């Protein structure tokens, strides 16, 4: 926020208004960083990350990805492009996959966030994590946390009957079959520079089939 312009200061009525508007309050905080010409205002918000509640006082312009990596030290979630195009930063928000680079953390007040670190139960890997190892669904591993989070969402979307572009009739409300085309299409937001796609598809398929049985 720019101190030289009066808007940052939140005139009293502005401060009052914004506090009520924001259910959790964005207040014009006092300058704290002497180096920066403009002082960040902070916003209080509560995020549940991997089952743990974090009450945070956040600069409202921190992306969810940067919050996870830089503030909470959950570096499993990767930054590939920072543009929504590679999927390396995929996390689950209230069970849905999103690109954490394309959203501000304060927009998720009260949300439940799951990252790759939250999938295993102690020493017991999530079935998809185990399947990625079993089927060689990775080489360098940089895209893998995003691939696995995406795949977790894929399986629950499928259970909920969500259609995709390759679903033969999108208006049809019949149960869907998880063909390889469906897997590829539904995973198409997650790019793997190493080209481990064959293993990725096989891993997802094996877990989906195991769940059906």
């Amino acid at each position, binding site marked *: *926020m*720019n101190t030289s312009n009066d*808007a*940052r200061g939140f005139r009293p009525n502005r401060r009052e*208004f*914004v506090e*009520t*508007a*924001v*259910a*959790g309050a*964005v207040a014009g905080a006092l300058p704290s960083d002497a180096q*920066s*010409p*403009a*002082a*960040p*205002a902070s*916003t209080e918000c509560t995020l549940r990350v991997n089952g743990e509640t974090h009450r945070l006082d956040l*600069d*409202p*312009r*921190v*992306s969810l990805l940067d919050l996870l990596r830089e503030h909470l030290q959950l570096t499993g979630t990767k930054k590939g492009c*920072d*543009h*929504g*195009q590679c*999927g390396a930063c*995929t996390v689950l*928000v209230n069970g*849905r*996959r*999103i*690109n954490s*680079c*394309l*959203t*501000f953390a*304060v*927009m998720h*007040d009260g949300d439940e966030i799951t990252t790759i670190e939250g999938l295993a139960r102690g020493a017991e890997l999530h079935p998809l994590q185990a399947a990625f190892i079993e089927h060689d669904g990775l080489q360098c591993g940089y895209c893998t946390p995003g691939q696995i989070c*995406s795949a977790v*969402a*894929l399986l629950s*979307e499928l259970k*909920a009957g*969500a*259609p*995709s*572009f390759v*679903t033969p009739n*999108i*208006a049809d*409300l019949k149960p869907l079959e998880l063909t390889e085309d469906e897997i590829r*299409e*539904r995973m*198409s*937001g*997650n790019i793997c520079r190493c080209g481990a796609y064959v293993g990725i598809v096989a891993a997802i398929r094996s877990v989906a089939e195991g769940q059906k049985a």
Partner: protein
Amino acid sequence: MRSFVPDYELVVAARLNDALDMLAEGWRPIAGGTDLMVLFNAGKLPYRKLVSIRRVKELSSIEESETEISIGAAVTYTHIRQHPVLRQEFPLLCSAASWTGSIANQNRGTLGGNIINASPAADSSPVLLVYDAELELISLRGTRRIPYCDFHLGYKKMQIRDDELLRSIHLPRKTENRRSYIRKVGPRQAQAISKVCFAATARLRGSAIDEVRIAAGSVAPVPLRCHATESVLRGQSISPDLIETAANAIAAEVQPITDIRSTRDYRRAVTANLLKQFLQTLA
């Protein structure tokens, strides 16, 4: 290069009126952020003060009345794709939603954001044109409705004032017995911006085309409803000659440009071919 973060302000509005108050004071809305955050992360976002409208309930529901379906501007593609009435009566919108970005994008990106971002290549635009959508705009001064076909005035120029929010998109429920067609042509289906996107609907009486609507994106500075081509077709019966005449008409009607994604000639040829394909489905 990333934006210099301290230059920006962001507030999450809880209520519609709070958001409108802030717009009146010069703040700009952010919905899913899938267009704005790309600009922000690239250091190219011109707006400095952002108000998030994602928590505003009035903007995120789909309402049904007897005569129309009203989609809140902040409704996501995922919500659209899964909505039973939209799937039944407005399948082209669900198809367009299903190939807009990836599923992670569809979980955040909104229909309102797609409209106001006003890319001539936006995948929802041709669909909204053939469904005769109307936009409802709201500000502290009140609301007004504008037919979507009149909304875009020129490249990224729209009939919306700075203090106005797009509130909802209304679709008249008149699609019964219409045949419909949609296709996106791009390097790949997911994550790629269209070289051409095309949507059309028609109703036949006997073998004659009683009603026809054709629209295309990425072929002009604004999403284009192809009225001239429609008038060539209206009242006629499908024949090889008619298909040829209509293809020539649409090739003359579109005004594509050459850019990083494609060339003018390719876009013109593809649009004509898509029209032919649509007309063949009617035969």
